[in-house]
C-alpha cells in the first residue's frame, strides 16, 4: 500500500509555519496508542489540538462542553454534521481543515442560523505524520477563527494502517436562528429570483487539477470560505429570504434540482447569465464535465422574492464573499420538479441531477 504519509501528495505545502509547541516525544508518526485514551492521546490533545483550537470550553476537557446560550439571539437551534474525506488533504486554496469548518458553518448558515459552536472528530490512520495532523488542526483553528465560531469539543480515534486515508475529519455545529427567519428548500415559490454569490465550479476543478493521474496546470484555487457573514448581509436586507443553499457536491445542478423537487416548483436558468470562469469552462470542456455539476465550497444560491431581489443583490455585491453575485434564473409554476435552462442559442434543455461521481469521458 501507499505510504500513508504521502496522502497529501508530493507537493505537500511546507509546514514551516507550524511547529509543535512541545514536540511529541517518541513518535513522529501516528501510532495506535494515540487513539487509546492514555498518555499518548493526552499528548496529542494537549500539544496539537488545544493550541490549534484555543478555546476555554475545550480546554476544560470535560466529557461535554456546557454552553450558555443566553443573550446569543434566537430561540431556535440549528444543528448539523458533516464528514470530510477529501483527497488530497491539501489542495490549492485550502485543505481538509478549512473544508471541515466551512462545510459545517455553511450548512448552518444555509438554514439562516448564526453558527456558534463546532465539534471536531479526527480519525487518523496509523503512520500519518504528526506534523500533517498538526497542520490540519492549525487550519481548523484558523478557519474557525475566521468564521467566528468556537471549537468546543472534540474526539480522536486511530485506525490501523491501510484502513484510512491519512485523516478523516467530522465536524458538527450548532447555531441559533434569529427571530423571523425561515429559510428552507420547500419555501421556494414561483416568481422567486435565483441569485448565485459568485463564479461557479471553482472548487471542483481546483481539486481535480491536483488529483493523482489527472494533474493539469491551472492557477485556480478552491473558493473554500465561510458564508455566514454573507448570509448576515442578506438577512440584513430582508428576513423574507425563501431558500439559501451552498451548492457543494453535485454543484448548482444538484442544489437546484433538490429545491425544485422539495418545493414542487420549476426553475428556469439562463445559461448566458451563469458566471463560469474561462478556466473552469475550459477544464470542463476537455474533461467532458458540466460546470453546473461541479462542486463549490464558498458560494451560495439565494431564492428571493422579486420585491427584494435588487436590494439583496446589492448587499451581496458589497460583501467580500459575494462580489461576483448575479441573477441566474427564476422560479416558475411550470414543469414543477424540473430545472430547465435556456441555452446560448435560445433553445432549451433540462438540467439534471448528476447521477453519482462525475466520470471524465473517453474522447
Amino acid at each position, binding site marked *: 500500500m501507499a505510504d500513508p504519509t504521502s496522502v497529501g501528495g508530493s507537493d505537500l505545502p511546507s509546514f514551516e509555519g507550524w511547529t509543535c509547541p512541545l514536540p511529541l516525544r517518541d513518535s513522529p508518526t501516528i501510532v495506535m496508542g494515540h487513539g487509546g485514551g492514555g498518555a499518548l492521546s493526552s499528548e496529542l490533545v494537549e500539544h496539537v489540538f488545544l493550541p490549534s483550537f484555543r478555546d476555554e470550553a475545550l480546554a476544560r476537557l470535560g466529557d461535554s462542553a456546557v454552553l450558555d446560550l443566553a443573550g446569543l439571539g434566537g430561540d431556535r437551534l440549528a444543528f448539523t454534521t458533516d464528514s470530510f474525506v477529501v483527497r488530497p488533504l491539501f489542495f490549492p486554496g485550502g485543505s481538509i481543515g478549512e473544508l471541515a469548518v466551512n462545510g459545517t458553518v455553511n450548512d448552518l448558515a444555509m438554514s439562516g442560523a448564526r453558527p456558534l459552536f463546532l465539534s471536531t472528530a479526527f480519525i487518523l490512520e496509523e503512520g500519518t505524520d504528526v506534523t500533517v495532523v498538526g497542520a490540519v488542526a492549525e487550519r481548523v483553528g484558523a478557519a474557525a477563527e475566521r468564521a467566528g465560531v468556537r471549537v468546543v469539543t472534540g474526539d480522536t480515534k486511530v485506525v490501523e494502517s491501510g484502513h484510512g486515508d491519512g485523516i478523516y475529519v467530522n465536524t458538527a455545529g450548532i447555531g441559533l436562528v434569529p427571530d423571523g427567519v425561515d429559510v428552507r428548500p420547500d419555501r421556494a415559490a414561483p416568481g422567486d429570483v435565483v441569485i448565485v454569490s459568485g463564479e461557479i465550479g471553482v472548487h471542483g476543478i481546483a481539486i481535480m487539477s491536483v488529483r493523482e*493521474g*489527472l494533474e493539469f496546470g491551472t492557477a485556480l484555487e478552491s473558493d473554500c470560505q465561510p458564508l455566514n457573514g454573507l448570509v448576515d448581509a442578506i438577512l440584513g436586507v430582508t428576513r423574507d429570504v425563501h431558500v439559501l443553499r451552498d451548492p457543494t457536491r453535485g454543484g448548482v445542478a444538484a442544489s437546484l434540482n433538490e429545491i425544485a423537487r422539495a418545493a414542487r416548483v420549476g426553475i428556469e436558468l439562463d445559461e448566458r447569465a451563469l458566471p463560469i470562469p*474561462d478556466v473552469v*469552462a*475550459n477544464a470542463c*470542456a476537455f474533461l*467532458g464535465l458540466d460546470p453546473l455539476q461541479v462542486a463549490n465550497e464558498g458560494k451560495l444560491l439565494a431564492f428571493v422574492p422579486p420585491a427584494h431581489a435588487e436590494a439583496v443583490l446589492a448587499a451581496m455585491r458589497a460583501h467580500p464573499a459575494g462580489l461576483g453575485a448575479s441573477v441566474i434564473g427564476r422560479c416558475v409554476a411550470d*414543469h414543477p420538479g*424540473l430545472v*430547465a435552462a435556456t*441555452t*446560448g*442559442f*435560445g*433553445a*432549451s*434543455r*433540462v438540467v*439534471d441531477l448528476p*447521477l*453519482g461521481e462525475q*466520470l*471524465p*469521458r*473517453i*474522447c
Partner: protein
Amino acid sequence: MKYLDEFQDPALARRLLDDIHATVTRPWAMMEVCGGQTHSIIRHGLDQLLPDGIELIHGPGCPVCVTPLEVIDKALEIAARPEVIFCSFGDMLRVPGSDGDLFRVKSAGGDVRVVYSPLDALTLARDNPDREVVFFGIGFETTAPPNAMTVHQARKLGIDNFSLLVSHVRVPPAIEAIMTAPVCRVQAFLAAGHVCTVMGTGEYPPLAERFGVPIVVTGFEPLDILEGIRRAVHQLEEGRHEVENAYPRAVAADGNPVAIRMLEDVFEVVDRSWRGIGMIPQSGWRLSERYREYDAEERFRVADIRTQESSVCRSGEVLQGLIKPHECAAFGTQCTPRNPLGATMVSSEGACAAYFLYRRLQPPPAREASTVG
C-alpha cells in the same frame, strides 16, 4: 479560450441558421456519426433551431455504446481476478454487462481504477511488477492510436505484466453497413471530425460515390455542427454527393501519418460485433500477430464468453438511426441513466442519455413512420 468561445457565438450561429433556412426546399435526413456531436446538438438545442424538414439521425459513433455486451462481460471477468489491476476510462465503469458493471466488481473487492490515459496504466504495470495490469482499450480511430502506442511502449520497455482488452472499431465500415441495411433513411453524413484527424479523409470518397451521399467532415462545437449541416444541405439541394472538409482546423486530408503507421503496426483489421447492431465485416481492430502476447482475451482465456443482449432494449435501432430514443418503450421508464438497459443510456455521448438528460421538458412528437432511400 481560443477556439472555444468563438465556436459558440450566437450571432454567427444565427447567420449559419439563416443560410440553412433559406436553402432548404424539402425535407432531408442526415446522420451525425459521432456521439460527441449528438451530445453537443442536444446539449445546445441545435436541432430545435433547424427548419422543420431537417432531421438529424443520431449515429453509432459513441465508443461506450457500441462496445458489445460480450466484451463488457469479459472485462468483468478479468477485473474480478485477484491478481489484476483493471484500468479503464471513467465512463466504461457504469456500462451494464450481463451481471452488474465494473463499479460492482470494484465494490466486491476488484481492483478497478479510473485512468486518464493508457500510459497511466503502463506506469501502474511498471510500479506493480507482481500484478497483472489490464487496460480496457475501446473506441474508434480516435482512441486507438494512444492504445497502440502504449502496447508498443510496453514491448519497448519490457513491461510484460501489461495487456490490452481490445474492442476497437472503425467508422467507414459502419457507414457502409448503415447504407446497405434494409431500411435506411440517411441521405447525408456529418462525418466524425476527430476520426478524420487521425485517419484523414481518404476513406470517404468511395462511400460518397457508391451510395450517392454527401459526406461532410464536421467538428463538435455548435458552429462546427451548423456549418456541417449547412454544407450538407447545400449539397443535397444541388444534387451533389461529395466529401467536404468543414473542420480544416483539425483535419488534414492525409490525417496523422505517424498515428496511422502505429495503428498498422500494432493492430490488424478484423470483423467486429457492435452492440445492438451485430457483426460488421472488417469494422474493427485486434492486436496484430506481432503483439498478440499483449492481448488480455488470450492471456486470461476469456475469448469463449458469449452473451445475448436484452430483448427489451432497442439501442441497436437507435444506433442505426431507425428510431429516436424516446420512441423506445423502455425509455425513461425501465431504462434510465441509473438503471440503463443499453449502453446508449450510459455514456454522456449516448443518444438515449442525451435525450434523457436534456429533453424531458418537451418530448418531441413521435415521428411519423416513413422511409426514404
